[in-house]
């Protein structure tokens, strides 16, 4: 068994409404896994349960074999469970260099040190430089993030998550809102993520899902409707009627 992230019978109820209904899910080590489902299927609730924004009504979340159900958001990040956001969440007044350095310094456990110098940590400097180079941000690293084009900001969103050294990376609609011209570079970035990072992609865009994922889980009405290889999912009649609809025929 090589599941790095796993949920068992995960239930979340809001009042009388069951948003996620006994979801048992597993993300394999090094996976390129997509989570799809129509609006209101419970994807957002599920991600919030994984990352610790919400606590489940019942059920368990496991990361690397350890129970993390009750851990705080930042504790999960420190264990390597990192996410990006559907809407950019950036340190807008910083430069990309500063933002990557801020995330890296936190990951290195330097964040509480109030008397040391940022440039004194050689590890912080080299890791920040590595990430700026890997995500091709070095040409804009000294500009203020708020002034950068949307596509670049989207790259920074992913780069910042990567700077937290995830073992599991949750990408929440990474290409959402990115203009066609900048889309390719962004998808290349996603495709170029190292193999040892397990990726869970939450996505609406079927082109991206089928291009990127080697495994797909379909959520409908808070339940797992189907789970398997992309071609099996594409052929699954239940998925076609419940979700893909005319898109599958189109």
């Amino acid at each position, binding site marked *: 068994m090589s599941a790095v992230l796993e949920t068992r019978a995960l239930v979340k109820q809001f009042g009388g409404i069951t948003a996620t209904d006994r979801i048992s899910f597993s993300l394999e080590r090094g996976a390129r896994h997509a989570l799809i489902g129509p609006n209101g299927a419970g994807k957002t609730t599920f991600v919030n349960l994984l*990352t610790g924004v919400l606590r489940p009504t019942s059920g368990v979340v496991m990361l690397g074999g350890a129970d993390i159900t009750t851990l*705080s*958001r*930042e504790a999960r*990040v*420190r264990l390597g469970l*990192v*996410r990006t*956001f559907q809407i950019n*969440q*950036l*340190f*807008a*007044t*910083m*430069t990309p*260099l*500063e*933002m990557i*350095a*801020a*995330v890296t*310094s*936190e*990951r290195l456990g*330097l*964040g*509480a*040190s*109030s*008397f*040391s*110098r*940022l*440039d004194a*940590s050689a590890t*912080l*400097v*080299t890791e*920040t*430089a*590595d990430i*700026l*180079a890997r995500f091709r941000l*070095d040409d804009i*690293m*000294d500009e203020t993030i708020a002034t950068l084009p949307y596509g670049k900001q989207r790259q920074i969103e992913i780069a*910042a*998550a990567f*700077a*937290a050294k995830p073992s599991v990376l949750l990408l929440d609609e990474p290409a959402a809102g990115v203009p066609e011209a900048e889309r390719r570079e962004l998808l290349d970035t996603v495709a170029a993520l190292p193999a040892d990072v397990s990726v869970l992609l939450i996505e609406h865009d079927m082109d991206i899902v089928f291009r990127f994922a080697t495994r797909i889980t379909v959520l409908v009405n808070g339940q797992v409707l189907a789970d398997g290889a992309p071609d099996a999912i594409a052929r699954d009649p239940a998925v076609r009627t419940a979700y893909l609809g005319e898109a599958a025929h189109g």
Partner: protein
Amino acid sequence: MSAPDLAASGLAGHVRASLMLSRRWHTAEALFWVGAIAAAFLFPRQLLLMNEIAILALFALSLDLILGYAGIVSLGHAAFLGMGAYSAGLVALHIASDPLLGLFVGMAASGLLGLVTSPLVLKGNDLTRLMVTLGVGLLMLELANALSFITGGADGLQGIMMGKLFGHFEFDLFGRTAYAYSLGVLFVLFVLARRIVHSPFGLSLRAIRDNPLRATASGVPRNWRLAAVYTLSAAYAGAAGALLAQTTQFVSLDVLDFHRSADVMLVLIIGGAGYLYGGLIGSIAFKFLQDFISGFTPQYWQFWIGLFLVLFVLGGREMIHGGIKAVLARLRALKPGKRP
């Protein structure tokens, strides 16, 4: 193989230089402090006013730490000024007249009050923070009023006699020792603050200020960091309060009054938050404005301050701060870059 390595090491060099650049002392900063010392010799009759400015500057620096660097708004910062003032005053009255002891106790007492009240500002938005801090400020004022057997109530703490600074320098009528003492404390605490805001901790505060959601998603323990800087800021305000009590040798309920909290906010808005010098420049502008206006209209000076505030916030601020930034950018461009 060597080409990307070379590029990477050049990049690392640039990253290191960029991280260093923000904390490097600028010539204009040195000039500022030299000017503050020179002022004592140039205007020997204005030392008492300059002492007030230095204390207000320290108070505003304290607010800048939470407002400019962590995004915590406060309308009750006088609570910490008052705590420091009363603590230092009580130390001088009942324990020992050594100024540095009183300063230390004042900072510790205010820091403790900051730590204890910090959970109140962790939650909620700007409006709830404004209300909560305002409430704490009012509580402290009424508490000091009610506990008159300790604070002297409406009469204040009277008969404070300060000992010599370092056992040598007596507090004189002209404010020579007072200004040197206040400026010295301001400088030391400023250098400390400067070091802290440019540390990894300071960067994590800016991260929280910019985007709490992303900060948490990057592993930053938001509540701990905010509580830490709130405590630090309270201790700084306590130092300002202690200086006020010691150099005026008097503490009254006025140190806890709402206008103290409002004034210091005004000072920081005039000077600009988030670059440490805002409180210092703002306090100079504010005191001179106050001095100048009350010179020709002693009763109605608040009218003019009010008018100034409205105009300033509506449009003048961008102009003035934009101007300062443009000048700084020019100065920076004049220096030969240190890019590798």
